[in-house]
């Protein structure tokens, strides 16, 4: 009886989250669809190129009819939604290919760059944060904090430019663009070599902010009474930091990292564009410039879904790890996240982030 009711409440809980997710995605798709259809710019031009100028109005009408552009927006949306459920997101006007195909070719590259970058940020920020908290107030702590402040003020695109200037133009040791040399797409070493600079920028751009956050949380934790008790018990500093402080800091850090996925993603998009790395970032930049609606819409949806998913995962993680965190307290994390997005790197953040755009 008791177990049953628990299962029911568990189902209820996850059901609510799924419902939340679906409704957010639905709203997002409406917004994205409407905005991209309302935007000026002639999709016919991107499909037919300059030939559009020479078309008669009759030909134009037929072309619009064929591409489904003549119906009212609402009808277009319903039609699009229906197709989308069948896995058909339309064709890219520019590439003249199925949108899904276009994205599939590029997605892997972005996942490699973003995924490894995200993992490195996670590990290094934790390490640096603990290191700083360990040596709080000493020179190493001060140096790392200072460097972090400076680094977080450097816009990613400029950091990329400087690195290209230094390593690719001046020293000629690292490639400045692309994901692999011509003909070298199967060569792992070559790929890794091309990843070095973009990866450096992604990690260096975001690392400091999160490290600083870990440090501050740890330092705050070190002022709690239980640490004093642990010290009185005679626990070593190592045990106190790793077994007690870090443990208390981890949940909020995890949820903040989950929320900041789009942030990091947005950063990779800019980096991709500067390094002309063939990923989702360059793709969405191109599609925005060429008014390739179908492609752009799917890219937006993908990033949006990722963001919403990460937000919900962060909530669940929080509530699971720490049952005290329910409803109201979730705002606390979103407030932290807001700081993340608004505060730091906005450098990338935000704002400029091609997609994902955390803060902005």
């Amino acid at each position, binding site marked *: 009886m008791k177990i049953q009711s628990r299962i029911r409440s568990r189902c209820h809980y996850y059901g609510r989250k799924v419902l939340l997710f679906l409704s*957010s995605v639905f*709203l*997002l798709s409406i917004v994205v669809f409407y*905005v991209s259809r309302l*935007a*000026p*710019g002639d999709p016919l031009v991107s499909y037919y190129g300059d030939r559009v100028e020479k078309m008669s109005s009759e030909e134009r009408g037929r072309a619009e009819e064929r591409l489904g552009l003549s119906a009212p927006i609402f009808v277009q949306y319903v039609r699009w939604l229906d197709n989308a459920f069948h896995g058909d997101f339309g064709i890219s006007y520019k590439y003249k290919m199925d949108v899904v195909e276009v994205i599939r070719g590029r997605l892997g590259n972005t996942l490699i760059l973003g995924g490894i970058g995200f993992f490195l940020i996670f590990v290094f920020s934790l390490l640096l944060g603990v290191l700083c908290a360990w040596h709080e107030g000493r020179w190493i702590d001060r140096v790392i904090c200072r460097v972090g*402040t400076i680094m*977080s*003020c*450097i*816009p990613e*695109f*400029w950091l990329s*430019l*400087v690195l290209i*200037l230094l390593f690719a*133009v001046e020293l000629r040791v690292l490639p400045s663009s692309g994901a692999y040399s011509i003909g070298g797409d199967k060569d792992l070493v070559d790929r890794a070599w091309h990843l070095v600079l973009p990866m450096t920028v992604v990690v260096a751009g975001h690392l400091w902010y999160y490290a600083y956050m870990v440090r501050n949380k740890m330092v*705050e934790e070190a*002022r*709690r*009474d239980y*640490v*004093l008790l642990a*010290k009185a018990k005679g626990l070593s500093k190592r045990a*106190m*930091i790793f077994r007690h402080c870090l443990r208390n800091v981890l949940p909020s850090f995890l949820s903040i990292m989950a929320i900041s996925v*789009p942030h990091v993603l*947005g950063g990779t*998009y800019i980096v991709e*564009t500067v390094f002309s790395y063939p990923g989702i970032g360059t793709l*969405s*930049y191109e599609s925005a*410039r060429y008014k390739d609606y179908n492609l752009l819409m799917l*890219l*937006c949806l993908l990033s*949006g879904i990722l*963001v*919403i998913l990460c*937000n919900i995962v962060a909530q669940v993680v929080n509530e699971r790890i720490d049952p005290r965190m329910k409803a109201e307290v979730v*705002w606390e994390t*979103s*407030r932290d*996240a*807001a*700081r993340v*997005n*608004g*505060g730091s790197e*906005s*450098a*990338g953040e*935000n*704002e*400029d982030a*091609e*997609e994902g*755009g955390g*803060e*902005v």
Partner: protein
Amino acid sequence: MMEDKFQIVGIQNPNEDAPNQVDIGRQEGVRPIFPRVVPIQKPRRHRDKPILAIVLLLTIVTGCLACEMIMTKDPAYMDLKNYNLPPNGEFLFGTDSMGRDVFSMIWYGGRVSLFIGVLSTLASTAIAVVFGAASGIAPGWLDELLMRLTEILLSVPSLLLVVLIQAILGEANVFSISLVIGVTSWTSIAKVVRTEVRGLRESEYVIASKCMGGGFFHILWHHLAPNFVSSIMFMVVMNVRGAIVAESTLSFMGIGLPLHVISWGSMLSLSEKALLTNSWWMILIPGIFLVVTLLSITSLGNFLQKSINAKQSNL
């Protein structure tokens, strides 16, 4: 169980001889706990004030505002005889690939960059405060709806949003780009305002004001704003920074200000060409000005936040 297990170090057993108590501090092996000298911290008045940042920021701002007095050339004039020159006596920071004097462009363009930063922050803060306060005061369901909306806005790729709005507004100029950046960057402040207002709305003075017929904007301005200003101050300052970065990134990628409107971002949009000719000054100089400005704004923001932990560490 031995009795000495319950003994507290440093406290003498009352049964022992009195003379021992006098020597307690000097006894071997027994450390006195109380007489520990706590170092008195010197009052640090100037330590946390970002003097350097303020000085740098003031220099850059006054330099940009008074750029007519500093500029040695016309920043828009294309001197086709002297293009792509490295820094020298006549062109202090060199010339770009279109023959414009970088030194003059820095000051002239800085004015645009800073202006965009301030203007778009004003726009986004205004939206955020009104929206956040409305959401905080509103009944539960409306609040939920508004917050959901901001979350969706947060999740739409910002650059896309910027590009789309920009496309609707037509060719980018200083005002349209600040507006666009402002419109896309208010959500995080709005969330903080909403949280603060939710905590404040039940307070007596707000209810009293409502009873006396105070309107939404009256309550917001006179009763709520003074309370949450300090908590959003840091974010507002950071918003200036974010807006400057956004403008330069957009202009750099060729979606923001066009080349002939000089700003730090549009100066950097020539950097693709500069990389080919290895003209470092076209990349480094505008970038350094940008970074120094951002850095000063950041330390100013951190100073405002004043999250100084006065408590001693227990470690």
